[in-house]
């Protein structure tokens, strides 16, 4: 082993972030804004490892766009141990943050292209880090189509932002819920796969980004294949796996040859389409 390889002695030590804002998004999801000691300097699609001191650590997507200041934004769903503790925190409390990790998106690759975003459930959370800079510079892109899906109106995220984005001339937003229980729901009802067939997409200039629960990918890809034949090199999928270290050492997030934490969580579909475990 080379003695002079660059080794960051602090690889596993978090930096401190102070919570400056919390919003309850849905029953199970909360939005957190943190102030860090130094800027994250992340790319869209990256994630951080969040430490609750003495409790544990988990992977959380960065939901804000790239920025110069020390701010980090996250949306956290309460599913278990650490996330439950996170939900109990208040403004002023501190957390440990490591990262940013993961490959993320190269925004420039999307310039001058049409973009189709399909986000199921929490999928909008990581993709927001891509969408925010995209919308901010929307003139640099072709048509931007965003399809979001949630189980019910109560579980939708970022509706106000979506409403703002809709104002841009080249942005189209389709909001869906699986079923509705609320008379005020003004979006559509159905699965995220439903509108895909009727979209008009130029397979040569459309970039597609997918993020959602494990079951979603297969069906969306089938629809895309059936109607648009967009090359796999132009499709990105944002995957989730169990993760313990975030830096390619703990082995948990392996997807066949790939490590979700390092090669992903955003993968070019062509890179993993032959991985049987990829979209399982």
């Amino acid at each position, binding site marked *: 082993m080379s003695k002079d390889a660059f080794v960051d002695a602090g*690889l596993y030590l978090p930096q401190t972030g102070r919570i400056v804002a919390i919003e309850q998004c849905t029953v199970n999801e909360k939005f957190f804004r943190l102030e860090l000691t130094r800027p994250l300097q992340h790319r869209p699609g990256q994630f951080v490892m969040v430490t609750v001191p*003495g409790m544990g650590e988990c992977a959380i997507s960065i939901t804000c766009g790239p920025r110069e200041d020390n701010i980090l934004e996250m949306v956290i769903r309460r599913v278990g141990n650490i996330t439950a503790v996170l939900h109990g925190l208040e403004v002023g409390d501190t957390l*440990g943050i490591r990262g940013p990790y993961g490959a993320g998106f190269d925004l420039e690759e999307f310039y001058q292209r049409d973009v189709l975003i399909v986000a199921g459930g929490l999928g909008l959370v990581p993709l927001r880090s891509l969408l925010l800079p995209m919308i901010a510079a929307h003139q640099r892109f072709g048509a931007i189509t965003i399809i979001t899906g949630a189980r019910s109106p109560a579980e939708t995220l970022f509706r106000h932002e979506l409403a703002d984005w809709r104002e841009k001339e080249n942005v189209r937003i389709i909001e869906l819920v699986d079923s509705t229980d609320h008379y005020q729901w003004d979006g559509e009802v159905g699965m995220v796969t439903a509108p895909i067939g009727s979209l008009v997409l130029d397979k040569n200039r459309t970039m597609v980004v997918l993020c959602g629960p494990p079951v979603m990918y297969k069906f969306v890809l089938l629809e895309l294949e059936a109607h648009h034949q967009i090359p796999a090199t132009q499709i990105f999928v944002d995957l989730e796996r169990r993760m313990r270290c975030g830096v390619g050492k703990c*082995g948990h997030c392996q997807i066949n*040859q790939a490590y979700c934490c390092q090669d992903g969580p955003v993968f070019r579909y062509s890179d993993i389409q032959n991985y049987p475990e990829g979209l399982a």
Partner: protein
Amino acid sequence: MGSYLATEEQVSTWLHLLAKERDLFWPRSVGQFNYSFLPLGERDEICFDRYLPTIVPPGRRLLPDDETLFTSQQGDDRLSHYLPPQPSAPMVLAGVRPCDLKGITQLDTVMAAAPADPYYHQRRVNTVIIAMNCLAPCDSRCFCSAVGALGAQDGADVFLTLLAEGVLVESLSARGDEILVKASFSLCEDGKERRLVAEGTRPLPFGRELAVVPEALPEMLRKGYESPVYHRYGERCYSCGTCNLVCPTCYCFEVRDEMSLDGFSGRRSRTWDSCMIPAFAEVAGPHNFRAEVGERQRHRLKRKFEYLPERFGLGSFCVGCGRCGRQCTANIDILNMVNDIAVEVGGGS
């Protein structure tokens, strides 16, 4: 980086000298049939004879179980301060067989891949390795030759070969020279030649064989992805994880946090984990990416022969030590499993 010839007694004296300065691990007999790398004590005898691969491979000393990642302490400012662990003391791993040596270099590569693991790195640069050549297969389990681990010398600082005329001691690095200063062995000009002669006496085939050439394995395994062989072996498997824990190239870990009773201080540590244990690939949902034991067997096997070799480009990650088969209570042997798949896929010869 010379070669020397010494008697076993001289080597033993030298090792004991080294052991006074730092922890020196040498395989010692534990129980009735097994061995373990244990600190060499003043009164311990060194067995140069054929010891079997130890229960746990020496490389695990570089990635110890329950290793502290950091301790945290809540200060008066109510902020948590994170402190790295104490650096580990220098050590010598001695009597390391070529298979385990290759295992260590494989770990080196994984841990050095950016971002490098600081704690492994710190241990590794502080570790001197004295390797021990193999001239005959250990037992009916090993197959190091089949996976190209037999000739391994990389990573060793000193390399020992038991010749009829004594122990051949070859220094392979500056650190090797350094630790050999203490020894009073006689120089041996034709060390390499003598070693090659001895190696020429190895039986052929050396241990068990693979049904396909190692380079053809990834392709064969891809073809056999849906093979029922995995599931057939899986029926006997307990998902106990032993096979992973004893493997020289397994390094997966779980992370645990524990805090003090008053809640003011805590410790994060990593503990050995195993991809054969069902919870390994479970996520919230709940969803398990490898819920079936056969899927886990496949993952374990493909990781050794396909995934990691292709990712890191260093040949097979199985080094043929035979430990997993030797330690598995269900008698699940990875080589048998590969060969069965080969037969089934038609890649076998």
